[in-house]
C-alpha cells in the first residue's frame, strides 16, 4: 500500500510544458464566461430597474472590450521582435495595450464603485446585483490576465 502512489508520476507522463497554452486557454475561458453567466443570472433574477439598474451592464461590456484589446496584440509585438511591422509598429502596439489595460482596470474599479456606491452605502435590501457586477468584472479581468500572461509564445515557433 505504501508504494501505491509512487508508480503514479503525473509530472513525467504528461508534459506540462507543451500543454501550458492549452491549460491557460481553458482557464481563461472558464473565468471569462463564468463572469458573463453571473451577470446573466443577476439580470434574470432581478429584472426591475430599481433592483438592478440596466446601465450597470456597461461596466462588463467595457471589460469585455478591454479583454479583446489586451489579447489582440502579442507580447512579441510589444517587445518589437515580431517579423512584420503593422500599420503603427511597436509604438502602436504599446499604445493599444496601454489603452486596453486602462479600460480593464477602469472597469474593475467602476464595478467596485457600483457595489459600494450603488448598494452598500445606500443600504439597499438587495446587495446581490452589486456583488454580481463586481464578480463579473473581476472574473473577466483575471480571465484576461490569464489569457495574456498564462500562455507562452515560445510554443508558437
Amino acid at each position: 500500500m505504501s508504494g501505491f502512489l509512487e508508480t503514479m508520476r503525473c509530472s513525467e507522463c504528461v508534459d506540462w510544458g507543451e500543454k501550458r497554452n492549452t491549460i491557460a486557454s481553458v482557464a481563461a475561458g472558464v473565468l471569462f464566461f463564468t463572469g458573463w453567466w453571473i451577470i446573466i443570472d443577476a439580470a434574470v433574477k432581478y429584472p426591475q430597474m430599481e433592483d438592478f439598474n440596466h446601465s450597470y451592464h456597461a461596466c462588463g461590456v467595457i471589460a469585455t472590450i478591454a479583454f479583446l484589446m489586451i489579447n489582440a496584440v502579442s507580447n512579441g509585438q510589444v517587445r518589437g521582435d515580431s517579423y512584420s511591422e503593422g500599420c503603427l509598429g511597436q509604438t502602436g502596439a504599446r499604445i493599444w495595450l496601454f489603452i486596453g489595460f486602462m479600460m480593464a482596470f477602469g472597469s474593475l474599479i467602476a464595478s467596485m464603485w457600483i457595489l459600494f456606491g450603488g448598494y452598500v452605502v445606500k443600504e439597499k435590501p438587495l446587495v446581490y446585483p452589486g456583488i454580481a457586477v463586481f464578480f463579473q468584472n473581476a472574473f473577466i479581468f483575471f480571465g484576461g490576465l490569464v489569457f495574456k500572461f498564462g500562455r507562452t509564445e515560445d510554443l508558437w515557433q
Partner: protein
Amino acid sequence: MAGIKALISLSFGGAIGLMFLMLGCALPQYNSQYWPLFVLFFYILSPIPYCIARRLVDETDATSNACKELAIFLTTGIVVSAFGLPIVFARAQLILWGACALVLTGNTVIFATILGFFLVFGSNDDFSWQQW
C-alpha cells in the same frame, strides 16, 4: 477494428448523456418543462471552433498556435454556457433543481463523449478523420 469499438462505445456515451438530458426534461415530477433542450445548441456548437482552427492552421512543427488557443478558449466558453444555462433556469424557478442536476450530469457525459471523439479520431491518420 479499434475504430469501430471506440465508435460504438462513444455512441453509447452519447446516448446515455441524451438520456439524462431527456430525463431532466420529461419526468412528470419535474413538471415536464422542456426548457433544458436549449443546451442542444451548445452540444452542436462546441466542436465547431476547434474544427475551423484545425483546418485553418497548417500542421507544421509548432506545438501550439494562437488560432488554436483562441478556438480552445471559445470551446471552453460554449461548454461553460451549457452548464450555466440550466443553473440560470433553475435559479429563475423555470425548472426544478433536480432537473437541473440531471441536465448537468447529461452535460458532463456528452462533453466527455465529444472530447473522447477528438482524442480517439483526432490523432490517428488511418481513419481519415483529418481529411474532412
